[in-house]
């Protein structure tokens, strides 16, 4: 008779019981080289029906049979997949999908002691050193997320250094679960008829419904059939491959196993919206999406078949996955409907979330019937979202990950205007030994480097030219290259200009004739000369081409302004009270807070 809240019992994650030389083999150096694997590799034999939950950072190579992970089935191949499994996201569960008893085309010549007696799949696991875990030092919220929590440390088993087998789920570790309706929809998306049609997959749904997770899973599934898949990010708040504020088109050729902060990538083409929502500039946002769709159609969708490739996947068609934003009410719904129309989608996946009060269901608004195949998906259970890490934390981490990442280098030869190469450009290393404030910056003479400074954001047109350096100091900006002649210069002869080339109320560069190469942090502006210090991971070969800088609402997270190496909790030897733009301790006055909005207040009528 008394209310007893429901309890969520911890469930078993791994039925795999690691036993040395029975289902776990540590290869000797000789064995590894004879097999064609790198040193310090463990081979695991996963039987049918067995599950194996891993936490950490590792490479996964399928030696025999096939294995399912995060909704994707991987078959034996020479590929070493990079897997990032932090506690902040649902962790992957490995399962044997098939053992391939009949095909004797073994790719690997396995040592005899491994080869014998196994009916299951064989995988090789190796620790992967990327430095990404160092982001936990930068943003303490994510400290130690690649290791078991205090409560699970005793029950976890170390497979390789930094790779832990998790036996049970608890509030800190939750498993990736593929809902039934997702599985059905994914299978339907894969079995499209031959010859291969040009496919555009649109994923939509409200916030926190698992939309991004589904889009990533779909992307990975498509990569088992296609050599390359294009990914159009329209969700500027929770971007998969770039920091927020960008509408970006990425080419992906390797499945991505991990949350967004573990695979920041240089886009093929991108446009800067400047905020984590298109609320303030819906027209510019739509123009950016439209420009990227055109880029996709003209430059990416189809290419010459690569006959020399030994790849058995489709090489001459690149399908497109479009992730829409989670703002699905009011103006957001209108924008999403427009985007869906522009994409000419062949498949539409709609994650149906819990309906919000007062807003009509989406279907009522949608009038024009489309030819696209419609799939309705259930939203992921809120219990499976990790409560320790909220959307703001994740967004901050994505920005920080971008600034600390080391991206593949590109030469200007391989990078003619305006596009990046038609391949994936994902960071594989992070350099976190020093905080941002201790990194050598670029010294930029803005009178030579920039033609124009543009501000985009509500009310930013009120910033007068003499205040512009106050606005840019410490700001995140985007580096934009414009086609020559498309932007009116502020000064006819910019060389020797005394003032930053800024005029009030300029429109952002037109997406169809410009491209955003990435973000940069103006860490300081000289008060006396025409110089500024800039940090950016953008390749130095293209910096000089970015003659326009755009500042939006995006800010450097506070974590990025701090110094995790300063023993006195100051910044770079400067004590707390003297660090510019930061204030420690409570604010004394009333109204000292930013405006906060409550949308869940109960009014009289609801009581």
């Amino acid at each position: 008779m008394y209310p007893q809240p429901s309890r969520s019992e911890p469930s078993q994650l791994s039925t795999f019981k690691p036993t040395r030389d029975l289902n776990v083999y540590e290869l000797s150096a000789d064995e590894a080289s004879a097999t064609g694997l790198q040193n310090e590799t463990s081979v695991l034999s996963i039987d049918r029906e067995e599950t194996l939950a891993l936490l950490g950072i590792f490479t996964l190579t399928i030696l025999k049979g096939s294995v399912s992970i995060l909704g994707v089935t991987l078959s034996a191949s020479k590929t070493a997949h990079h897997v990032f499994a932090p506690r902040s996201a649902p962790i992957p569960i490995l399962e044997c999908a098939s053992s391939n008893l009949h095909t004797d085309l073994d790719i690997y010549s396995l040592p005899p002691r491994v080869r014998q007696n196994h009916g299951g799949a064989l995988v090789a696991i190796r620790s992967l050193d990327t430095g990404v875990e160092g982001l936990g030092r930068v943003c303490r919220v994510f400290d130690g997320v690649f290791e078991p929590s205090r409560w699970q440390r005793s029950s976890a088993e170390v497979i390789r250094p930094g790779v832990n087998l998790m036996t049970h789920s608890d509030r800190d570790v939750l498993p990736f679960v593929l809902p039934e309706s997702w599985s059905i929809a994914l299978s339907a998306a894969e079995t499209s008829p031959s010859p291969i049609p040009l496919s555009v997959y649109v994923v939509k749904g409200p916030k926190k419904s698992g939309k991004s997770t589904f889009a990533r899973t779909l992307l990975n599934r498509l990569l088992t059939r296609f050599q390359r898949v294009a990914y159009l990010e329209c969700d500027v708040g929770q971007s998969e491959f770039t920091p927020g504020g960008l509408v970006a088109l990425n080419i992906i050729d390797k499945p991505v196993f991990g949350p967004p902060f573990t695979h920041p990538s240089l886009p093929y083409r991108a446009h800067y919206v400047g905020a984590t929502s298109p609320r303030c500039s819906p027209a510019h946002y739509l123009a950016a999406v439209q420009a990227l769709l055109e880029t996709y159609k003209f430059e990416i969708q189809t290419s010459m078949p690569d006959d020399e490739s030994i790849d058995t996947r489709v090489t001459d068609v690149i399908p497109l996955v479009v992730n829409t934003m989670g703002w699905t009410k009011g103006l957001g719904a209108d924008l999403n409907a427009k985007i869906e129309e522009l994409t000419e989608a062949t498949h539409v996946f709609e994650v149906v979330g819990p309906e919000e009060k007062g807003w009509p269901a989406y279907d009522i608004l949608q009038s024009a019937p489309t030819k696209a195949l419609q799939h309705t998906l259930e939203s992921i259970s809120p219990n499976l979202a990790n409560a320790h890490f909220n959307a703001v934390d994740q967004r901050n981490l994505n920005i920080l990950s971008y600034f600390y990442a080391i991206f593949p280098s590109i030469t200007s030869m391989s990078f003619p205007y305006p596009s990046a190469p038609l391949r994936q450009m994902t960071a594989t290393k992070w350099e976190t030994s020093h905080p941002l404030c201790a990194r050598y910056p670029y010294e930029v003479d803005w009178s030579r480097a920039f033609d124009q400074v543009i501000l985009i954001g509500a009310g930013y047109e009120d910033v007068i030219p003499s205040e512009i350096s106050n606005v840019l100091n410490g700001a995140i900006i985007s580096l934009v290259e414009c086609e020559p002649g498309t932007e009116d210069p502020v000064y006819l002869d910019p060389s020797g200009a005394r003032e930053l080339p800024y005029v009030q109320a300029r429109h952002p560069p037109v997406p169809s004739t410009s491209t955003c190469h990435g973000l940069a942090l103006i860490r300081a502006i000289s008060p006396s000369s025409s110089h500024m210090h800039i940090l950016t991971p953008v390749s130095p070969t293209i910096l000089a081409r970015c003659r326009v800088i755009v500042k939006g609402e995006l800010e450097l997270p506070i974590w990025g302004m701090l110094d995790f190496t300063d023993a006195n909790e100051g910044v770079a030897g400067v004590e707390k009270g003297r660090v510019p733009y930061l204030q420690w301790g409570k604010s004394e006055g009333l109204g000292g807070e930013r405006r906060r909005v409550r949308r869940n207040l109960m009014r009289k009528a609801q009581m």
Partner: protein
Amino acid sequence: MKLPRRVPWAHINELDQLCSWVFMDEGDLEAKRFAINRLSAWRAVTALPHALESTLSILTARLIDTSETQQSPSWLSLRQNYAAAIIRMVNGLVDPLQAGAYARSIASIAAQLGLPSWLVELRHSATHEDLPSLEVLREAARESLTWLLHNYFLPTINPSAPRPSTAPPLRPVTPLLKQYKTLLKIVTRDASLRKQNQPDIDAIMRDIERWLAEAKLAADFAADAYGWETIDGNDVEQEDSREKWALERLCDALIEKGALVSLSQKRRNFPSDEFVPPHSSLVLWTPLLAHTHTYHPTFPSVLTTRIVENLLYEQPNSGFDMDIVSLDADESQNDPSYHLALAKWAVWVIKAYDNGQENGELSLRKNVIVQLASTLAPGKTEGAKKIDVLAALLGAVSSGFTELQTASDILLSATHPLQPQHWDAGDLTVMNERLHSLMSLDGECQKSTNDPDSAPTTLLPVQGANIGGWRLLDHHSGWKSCPIGIYYSNHAMSIV
């Protein structure tokens, strides 16, 4: 670790300067223009504190009003300008203080803030009724700026100065609890009366919820009294500390005799095998506990913590009277049946709400055990009173959990002194080894951190980096690390 907040000024002096532009000389339009330009720039740097947003919009409206250059002014647009500024100011001050689940009246919040009530009235009429007259709007703008000066600018610039507004005291919650108890007694005795009384019960539960919202707001003021440094409304963590403060006040009232624990000694405990509160109390209080838990997930944890603290420590005489805590300290210290009854409530709360999922790091159960352990630890037991109750509580909390049971057995049994350790010749070797490993650790740390000269910016090839006005600095440039926002040139450090 407490995160600092991002502010648009490099140094507080800049806010001081802005303040003087706004308030020094009302007739100095040039200064007002400076202030507007600076605030507009700050808006583009980071989201402004609400008080500064309001200052900007009120100043802008006044500047249009006072500029002589304006020809054939549109008085309507001027009134709209003023009205929007005032509506947004009042809303922005009040909204963050809607801390509870149910809406409170704006007037009551404004009173707590010390905001003139006629501004609240003006907000209402400007929103829903006729647009107020220019005369009234001008006066409202003036009064708003004065309020901002005294309540935002001055306290922010001089943090040590006393806050001008004194908050009205928080009303006591005990009368609400008594009212609740009376109603529940009626319906539990005669179920046929439930339907008739249900609206009253719902109302009183809402009122308690509203009281919690008021208490959260009062927490800000109480923070000064307590000298807490943690309360600050800027982020979630700090929001939590307000919520915690409010819930603690409610729990203290619940723990008082006459609430969870009956006043009558006879009704407190019945000899039974189970360590649970008496049925009659459960029936009375579980609806309220469940309702509070719905809106305040941390409620169970605060309640158990508060109960255990009550059992562990002498009631402190805080000297700060919130009109809530009216425990007669001496009497309550020596009342075993009261303590036993409280302990049973703690156990019930744990059993009902511990799903191991919430309240941060520790589950309710572990939390209580940790709390108890520090007092029951070997060597500390002599000082603690109520040891029987604590032992019973520990036993009940850990029963059914093997690991916890073992731990608590150790705690309860370990009354004998520690075995003196015998010196062994090998010990010195062990100590030396440990010293070594510690020292080498230190050396490694030094290497990795105290070496600013090795700061890399990027591992990308530097070829072609010195083109088009871009030059990558390196260790030859003499650049040294410094906070973001400080321009380090070879000659001097300077803030823009």
